[in-house]
């Protein structure tokens, strides 16, 4: 087992990792930027090292200073949290070069899964369902129509050089496709200097459902069920839950089997997340693998009773998984409370926490780096706290979340709590009937 772990992160996830280490009897080293001197993870760790000025590029992404901090404190291992260096194969490699265990998958695995094209190729070989598409660039309209007929309309035309939703066009018929392909090529040429396009099946009203897997170094891989992360704003997850209100045992098993097949194929070790798009008919399509602990790992913990971060560390230290399957109990929901003003176009909010009373009582969990008097700094992501509630069923979890958010006192900073309450009171949300455009179509339009 490790004697000392350095946590190369900040905020709530640094606190989360320190807690796991404490429960494992491992000493901790916090690193922090000059802006985070007063942050909770600095107080909670056994040691703390300043690694640079406020900008993340010079501190939390400063590999030499982080490695050096691990070396001077004699840390055995580095936990990267999520974000920052968590999916940097280069960082994983440098750790290895300095005989420091990187708590995450091997660098080759990070590389293979980090490259989207390569990841898809591997998953296809492993028999994980992919979104049907042109499997490369589309040369002419005739070919496009042929492919579209094979995979079925509607289809999505994507510019190979595009990204973030830019250069995409939906087509519902061959005629529309022919017309759109011309336009898309022209646009792509104009906008990205590259007319290359490809075709993918377009999923109407999809849901984002991900499978949490955990593998050890002895070839054991277990699925811990799914999380539904469909409630998003501009590709940022806001609310996550487990189980998904639209996934039954049969579908859960099928998705779990697919994820486990994929994980075996790459020799996955540690916790990993297989993200899928789920269509209205219960068909699911591989999107990507996240090779790290996720923000929303908490809901899986609440329904499985398994401490994912502790297991992540144990596995990195060479321990063997001691469970083969998991039982889901009840329902868990997580709300990400951000320092943003929902009434002012989600402008980031910073300032001093004048008053802070976190919710408590039965089946309410708070993961946060906040405390009263803490100064919220504007340099990093706006996540203030994760509120997680558990209920014997989804309905109880939702009602409990409303209760928890209503009793949460956070004075001195604007938060997304009002938006969360709006979602939790929305009929479609309560029924579990929503897709990725839920927020823009059902909630934010009301404003």
């Amino acid at each position, binding site marked *: 087992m490790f004697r000392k772990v350095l946590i190369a992160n900040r905020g709530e996830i640094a606190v989360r990792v320190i807690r796991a280490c404490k429960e494992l009897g491992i000493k901790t080293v916090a690193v922090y930027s*000059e802006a985070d001197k007063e942050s909770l993870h600095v107080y909670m760790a056994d040691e703390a*090292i300043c690694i*640079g000025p406020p900008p993340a590029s010079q501190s939390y992404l400063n590999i*030499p*200073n982080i490695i050096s*901090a691990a070396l001077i404190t004699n840390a055995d291992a580095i936990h990267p949290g999520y974000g920052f260096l968590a999916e940097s194969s280069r960082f994983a490699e440098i750790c290895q070069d300095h005989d420091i265990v990187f708590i995450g998958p091997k660098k080759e695995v990070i590389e293979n899964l980090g490259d989207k094209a390569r990841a898809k190729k591997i998953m296809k070989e492993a028999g994980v369902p992919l979104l049907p598409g042109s499997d490369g660039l589309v040369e002419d309209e005739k070919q496009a129509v042929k492919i579209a007929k094979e995979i079925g309309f509607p289809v999505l035309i994507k510019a190979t050089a595009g990204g973030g939703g830019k250069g995409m066009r939906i087509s519902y018929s061959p005629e529309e496709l022919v017309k759109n392909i011309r336009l898309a090529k022209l646009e792509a040429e104009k906008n990205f200097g590259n007319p290359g396009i490809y075709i993918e099946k377009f999923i109407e009203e999809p849901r984002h459902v991900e499978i949490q897997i955990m593998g050890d170094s002895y070839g054991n891989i277990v699925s811990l069920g799914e999380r539904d992360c469909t409630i998003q704003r501009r590709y940022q997850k806001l609310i996550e839950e487990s189980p998904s209100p639209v996934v039954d045992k049969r579908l859960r098993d099928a998705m779990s089997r697919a994820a486990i097949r994929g994980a075996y194929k790459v020799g996955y070790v540690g916790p990993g997340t297989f993200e899928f798009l789920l269509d209205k008919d219960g068909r699911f399509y591989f999107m990507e693998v996240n090779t790290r602990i996720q923000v929303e790992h908490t809901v899986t913990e609440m329904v499985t009773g398994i401490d994912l971060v502790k297991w992540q560390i144990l596995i990195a230290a060479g321990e063997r998984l001691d469970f083969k399957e998991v039982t889901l109990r009840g329902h868990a929901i997580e709300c990400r409370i951000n320092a943003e003003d929902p009434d002012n176009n989600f402008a980031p909010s910073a300032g001093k926490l004048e008053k802070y009373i976190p919710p408590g009582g039965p089946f309410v969990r708070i993961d946060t780096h906040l405390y009263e008097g803490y100064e919220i700094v504007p340099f990093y992501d706006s996540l203030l706290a994760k509120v997680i509630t558990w209920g014997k069923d989804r309905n109880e979890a939702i009602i409990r979340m409303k209760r928890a958010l209503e009793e949460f006192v956070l004075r001195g900073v604007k938060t997304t709590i009002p938006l969360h309450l709006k979602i939790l009171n929305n009929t479609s949300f309560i029924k579990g009937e929503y897709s990725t455009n839920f927020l823009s179509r059902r909630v934010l339009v009301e404003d």
Partner: protein
Amino acid sequence: MKEWSLEELKELICLFNKSNLSELIIENGENKLVLRRGDNVVSTPSTEVEPKVEKTQIIKENVDEGVYITAPLVGVFYRSPAPGAPPFVEEGDLVEPGQTVCIIEAMKLMNEIKSHVRGRVKKVLVENGQAVEFGQKLFLIDTESNV
């Protein structure tokens, strides 16, 4: 005019804050920098906060007579280029900008740390072989006295 880096701006604003200037304008052809003091900002906290500030300034002057050379990276501090070799600088030595004052070892690399000021080494604040974090004070340099 030169391009202002963030660090330089910080220093400039700090200086301006402490001064009794109400406005600072630097113009140079196309380049222009304007700092303007807020009237009300000054007045409100002034009665309450100022005495406090004065005090710290006095203390600071007593203790700080000089500027610090701080660690620009995390690592192990060495005073001399090799074990047994004489230190780069001793207390009382004169240093010039660009002169190496110590080495910080990080990831097995030896990084020469250079002074950014001219002055006399008033105090060496870290022991040879000690680990240092980013921003840690290494040397106190007396830039005021007749050097």
